[in-house]
């Protein structure tokens, strides 16, 4: 699905209006969204993800005007078609690794596929941790689980927010390769939001935000 934003504007209460450049992404295309801290990267990511309603302008994914939908419709649209990967991974604490992944499938509205979960865990070398509670995992392991959680329902658009900023060089490359390769495998578009310059060489399509 192709993503396009046109003329989106957002202002926080008491702050000045943020204007964002129009973004157009073909289906399967990958891009880097670069900007300094405070340039509104995360805000733009949330606007594109359907988490934050812009004051004006529109966000279209696969021809659907996301903010033309009701809140509930938007929740299920997002769940089904968008995968988000966060800088700091969070999970439902009461559940195990496997249960968190299966919950992600359930909430996305796809069938709960245990084989796929095993396959994905195997991919990131965490098969043995499937039945562990989240707090028993290391930070790096959590990060990997959060990446496969963003992919497990085969979304059309993957949005990753600073996925590598806390990682050393070796891990940084492994993680970005994983996200990029898996996105390609399932034919999803990918936007990585970052201020991490290590990634600039990895993506040809780059969008810069100026504060």
């Amino acid at each position, binding site marked *: 699905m192709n993503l396009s934003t046109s003329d989106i504007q957002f202002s926080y209460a008491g702050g000045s209006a943020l204007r964002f450049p129009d973004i157009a992404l073909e289906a399967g295309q990958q891009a880097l969204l670069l900007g300094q801290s405070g340039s509104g990267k*995360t*805000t733009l990511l*949330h606007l594109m*993800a359907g*988490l*934050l309603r812009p004051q004006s302008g529109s966000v279209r994914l696969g021809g659907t005007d996301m903010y033309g939908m009701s*809140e*509930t419709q938007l*929740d*299920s649209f*997002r*769940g*089904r078609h968008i995968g*988000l990967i*966060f*800088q*700091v991974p*969070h*999970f*439902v*604490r*009461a*559940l195990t690794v496997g*249960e968190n992944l*299966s*919950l*992600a499938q*359930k*909430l*996305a*509205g796809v069938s*709960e596929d245990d084989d796929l979960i095993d396959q994905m865990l195997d991919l990131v070398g965490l098969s043995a941790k499937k039945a562990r509670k989240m707090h028993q995992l290391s930070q790096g392991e959590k990060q990997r689980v959060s990446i496969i*959680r963003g992919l497990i329902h085969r979304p059309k658009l993957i949005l990753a927010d600073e996925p590598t900023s806390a990682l050393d060089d070796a891990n940084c490359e492994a993680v970005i390769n994983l996200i990029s390769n898996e996105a390609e495998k399932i034919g999803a578009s990918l936007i990585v939001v970052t201020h991490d310059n290590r990634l600039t060489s990895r993506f040809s399509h780059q969008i810069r935000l100026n504060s």
Partner: protein
Amino acid sequence: MSWIRLAWKNLWARPLSALLSLILFSLGIGLITVLLLVNNQLTKNFDRNLADIDLVIGAKGSPMQMILCNMYHVDAPTGNVTIKEVSPFLNPKHPLIEMAVPTSIGDSYKTYRIIGTTHEYARLYDGELAQGRWWTEDLEVVVGAAVAKKLHIHVGDQFMSSHGFDDNSDLVHDHHTPFTVVGIMKGTGSVLDQVILTNTSSVWSVHDHDHDDDHEAEAHASDSMAHEDHDHSGHDHSGHDHHDHDHGAHVHTTVEVDASDFGTVNNAQLLDHPEEEITALLIRYKNNNFQTMSMPRSINENTDMQAASPPYEISRVYSMMGSGTEALRAIAILIAIVSGLSIFFSLLSSLKDRKYELSLMRVMGAGRSRLFLLIVLEGLLVAALGFVIGLLLAHIGTWAFASRISEQFRYSLSAWEFLPAEAWMGLIALLIGLVASVIPAWQAYKTDIHSTLSEG
């Protein structure tokens, strides 16, 4: 992963606060249920034991005590009356009275009361024999179902009665011929199950033996109000000394009696012993009319006896019990409210920790209403579980209480009887769970995902 399973897991992710809510909730429910059960069954028991007895006539004293003693067998007698005094009511041709059943109370066997009476006593409670036969001779007894079961009594068994109502070996009447069990009654669920019945004259003969053969018995006699009038020292020649018959000293007795053969099985035979005593007379009218209405007053005013109406006295017992029950009920309701609050606060505080988690679920596709339902489900789970545990505790508690109360108060409570009110309590429990979780659920509903996720 169903929603209910997710709610369940969320609940037990905080085991201590879940446990606290659960304990409080089941305590509140349990206490209310126990009150319901006990109150319902006590009322039922009291009503069943009223047995359509319209009037009790006995010695002057507290009317409530007289009724508790002679009908419910929980209090000491107010004293005795002579057959002569009650003779008008024993007359089978009395125009107003359908049944007049004498009771002679004061002795027991292993704390179970022995009641000297006529066969009609069992008829008051629709009692029937399970085994054996009714008594025909003195010192033959028919045993209530609960007594027989508890003391493992069989037809043909013999025992010695003891004086008063305590199980005290010092007070055993060890000089008379033992009682012989000739029959065992079927269970009726009434006080009849908890007593031992015999001839009125059996009680006389037991006491006559005591007084004749054992002068210590007089000391015992003063222990019990029932026997305060039994002053048979043998020096009293005012007409009571017929008790000394075994010494051959019936100089001026009005009636010739042989202790071993009173043989009073009906009221007409009782009338042959005007100087003997009974504790009370239980009366059932033919019809309630103007004359029966004035009967108690005329007895109270014109005789040395008192007459009391069981329904009236029992309603006084209820009103006295009522204030205690009220207080307990208020405590139970307070606990229920506190447990509701505990659910409320524990959900609210868990929400603070789970804000990010809930936003995440929104991101992954759960609509707001789903999150609302999830939190409500968590509250309802505590309520439902607390209700089930509370109910179970209440019935187990009643069961434990029932085994004690049956000995002390001659009641058989059935702990495994479920009341329609309990279903209503289930509904109320769920309602409390719902109310307690609505505000936290609403908070979950309006979580701002963008700002929560931005805070990281």
